[in-house]
C-alpha cells in the first residue's frame, strides 16, 4: 500500500480539499445567514416572531405597503438616490478626466479631497451639513433644513467618492492612441471625450451609477439629521417604525429592498463585468 487511490490522490490531499470546501461553505453560510433569516421572517404568519413559526403568510407585505410612512420613505429614497447619483456623475466625470489626464499641482490633493467622504463618519457628515443648512437658512431665509434637497446634497457626498474612484480607474485604462486617432481625424477634445472616451468607459459609468445608488439608498447615518416629517428616507422610516413596533413588517420591507438592489447588481453585471471594472 503506497497510499495511492484510484484517482492518484493521496488521502492527505483529499482531506485538505474537504477541509477547504467545508471552510468555504461555512463562510458563505455565515454571510448568507442574515439574508436567509430576514426572508424567512418576512413570511411568518404570527405577529410575534417565534420558532417554529405559527404558519406562513404574505400578509406582512400587504401591511408594509399600507404603511404610508414606509411607502413614502421608499419613494423618497428612490428619487434621492437617483438624483444624488446623477449629480454625482455629472460632477465626477469631468473631474475624473482632469485627474486621470491632467498634470497639475495639487492633483493628488484634489483626488484625496474627493475621496475624503469615505473616511469621515457618516454621522459627522450628516450633522455638519445640518448645521450648515440651518445657518444658510438663517442667513438667506431659504427653507433648506428639513427639505429633501438637503438630503440630496448630503448624499452627493456619498456618491462622489465611488464615482471618482470607478471613473478614474476606467479612464486610466483607456488606450490613449484611440483618443489620439479621434483627434487626428478631426474631432476636438470635447467631441473625442463624448464620442470615443465615454462610450469606451461605459461599463465603468454604469458601475459607478449602481454603486452610488446603492450606497445612497441604504444610508442611514448621514440622513439621520436631515429628515423631516413627510421627508423621510426608507432606512429612517424603518428605524422609526422599529421604535414602537417589532413585527415581520420590517422583514418584508427589507426583502423588497434586497430584491431591488440585488436586481440592480445583477442587471449591471449583465451589461458589464463588475469584477473587472471595480
Amino acid at each position, binding site marked *: 500500500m503506497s497510499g495511492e487511490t484510484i484517482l492518484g490522490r493521496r488521502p492527505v490531499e483529499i482531506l485538505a480539499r474537504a477541509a477547504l470546501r467545508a471552510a468555504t461553505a461555512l463562510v458563505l453560510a455565515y454571510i448568507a445567514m442574515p439574508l436567509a433569516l430576514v426572508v424567512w421572517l418576512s413570511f411568518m404568519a404570527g405577529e410575534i416572531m417565534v420558532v417554529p413559526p405559527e404558519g406562513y403568510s404574505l400578509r406582512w407585505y400587504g401591511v408594509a405597503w399600507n404603511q404610508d410612512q414606509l411607502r413614502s420613505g421608499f419613494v423618497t429614497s428612490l428619487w434621492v438616490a437617483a438624483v444624488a447619483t446623477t449629480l454625482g456623475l455629472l460632477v465626477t466625470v469631468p473631474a475624473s478626466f482632469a485627474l486621470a489626464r491632467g498634470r497639475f499641482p495639487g492633483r493628488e490633493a484634489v483626488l484625496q479631497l474627493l475621496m475624503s467622504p469615505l473616511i469621515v463618519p457618516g454621522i459627522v457628515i450628516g450633522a455638519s451639513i445640518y448645521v450648515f443648512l440651518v445657518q444658510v437658512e438663517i442667513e438667506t431665509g431659504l427653507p433648506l433644513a428639513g427639505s429633501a434637497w438637503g438630503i440630496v446634497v448630503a448624499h452627493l457626498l456619498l456618491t462622489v467618492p465611488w464615482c471618482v474612484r470607478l471613473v478614474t480607474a476606467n479612464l486610466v485604462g483607456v488606450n490613449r492612441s484611440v483618443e489620439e486617432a479621434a*483627434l487626428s481625424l478631426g474631432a476636438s477634445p470635447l467631441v473625442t471625450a463624448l464620442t470615443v472616451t465615454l462610450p469606451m468607459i461605459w461599463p465603468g459609468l454604469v458601475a459607478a451609477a449602481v454603486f452610488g445608488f446603492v450606497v445612497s439608498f441604504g444610508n442611514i447615518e448621514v440622513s439621520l439629521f436631515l429628515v423631516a416629517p413627510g421627508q423621510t428616507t426608507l432606512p429612517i422610516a424603518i428605524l422609526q417604525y422599529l421604535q414602537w413596533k417589532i413585527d415581520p413588517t420590517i422583514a418584508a420591507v427589507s426583502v423588497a429592498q434586497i430584491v431591488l438592489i440585488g436586481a440592480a447588481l445583477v442587471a449591471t453585471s449583465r451589461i458589464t463585468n463588475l469584477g473587472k471594472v471595480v
Partner: protein
Amino acid sequence: MAGIRIESLAKRYNAVSAVDGVTLDVRDGEFLVLLGPSGCGKTTTLRMIAGFVAPSEGCVRIGARDVTHEPPYRRNIGLVFQNYALFPHLTVEENVAFGLRRRRVGEAAIRTRVATALSRVKLDGFGGRYPRAMSGGQQQRVAIARAIVIEPDVLLLDEPLSNLDAQLRHDVRGELRRLQTELGITTIMVTHDQDEAMSVADRLAVMEKGQVRQVGTPSEIYRRPADRFVASFVGRANFYAGRAERGIFVTASGLRLPVADLAEGADTLMIRPEAVGLRPAGADGLAATVETATYLGAGWELELRLAGGERLSVVAPDAGEHWRQGQILTAHVAPTAGVGMRTGS
C-alpha cells in the same frame, strides 16, 4: 496633397533632448521612412508632425501652411498606430466614417467613400463587423482605410507593422506601398526595422540620439552610408581602421586597398560582406584563411582571416564550391566595394 517641411525641430524634456534639431524636406507624394533604434527620437518627431507633442523649437509646415501651433484636429493628417487604435464600440464602417462625420460630409457621400476605402484595403463586406471580431492584419487595414478616407494632406504611420506576424508584415507592407503609390499621398513612416524601411521607402532618414544621421534613397544609405552607425544599422558590415592615401586605404596592419571616391581624411573603411568576391588561392586580391564556413542554402557565410590578422565576414552566393575551415583562398575587394568614412572620434 502637399509636401512636409520640418525645420530645426527640437523637443527637450527638462535637460534631456528627445529630438535635437531635425530638418527634413519630404516631397509631395514621397514615402519617407524615419529609421532608427528605440529612443532615437523618431516617434517624438512623428508626434510633433501629428501635433501631439509641442516642439521646444523649430517648425512644421504642411504644404504652404505652418501648422506648428495647430492642434492635431486641424492638421488634416491621417494617422496609423502600431496598436491599430480602432474605436472598439463602433463597427468597421463607423470607424472609417468617423473622420468624414467630423467633416460634416453628407450621409450618401459617406457611404460611398467608406465603401471605396474599404475596398481599397480589400475589406469589402466587413463593414458591419466590430474590430474585436477581426484579426490583427484586418484591424490594421481598417486603421489604414480610416486614415486615408479623409483624404489627408499627409499620412503618418507609427510602427504600423510591428504587431503583425512575419508573413503578414511582409504582405501588409507591400499593400501599404501599393496604396501609397496609387493615392500619391505624402507619407512618413516610423520603424526600427531596416528591412521594412528599405522595402517601402522612397527615401530613408536614419536617426540616432535625436538627430538625423543621413537622408537618402535605400541604396544610397546601404551602399554609401555616411558613418559607422548608419552602416551597421542598415546591414552587416566589416570595419577597418586606417588612413586614406591618394585613393588607397591603408589599414592599421598595412593592408593597401584601392577605394573609389575615397575622401582624404577617412579613418575607417567599410566593406559589406556580400561585396567581397571569393577566388581561388593565388588569384589577384587578399590572401585569406577560412576560419568558419556556414552553408545557408542560398549561399555561404564565411569568416576569413586576412594576412595582416584582420577578420573579414563574407556572404557569397552558392556557386557550387564547398568551403572548408582552414582552406586558403583569395578575397577580392573591388574599388567600388569599400566606403571610406570619418568616425570623428
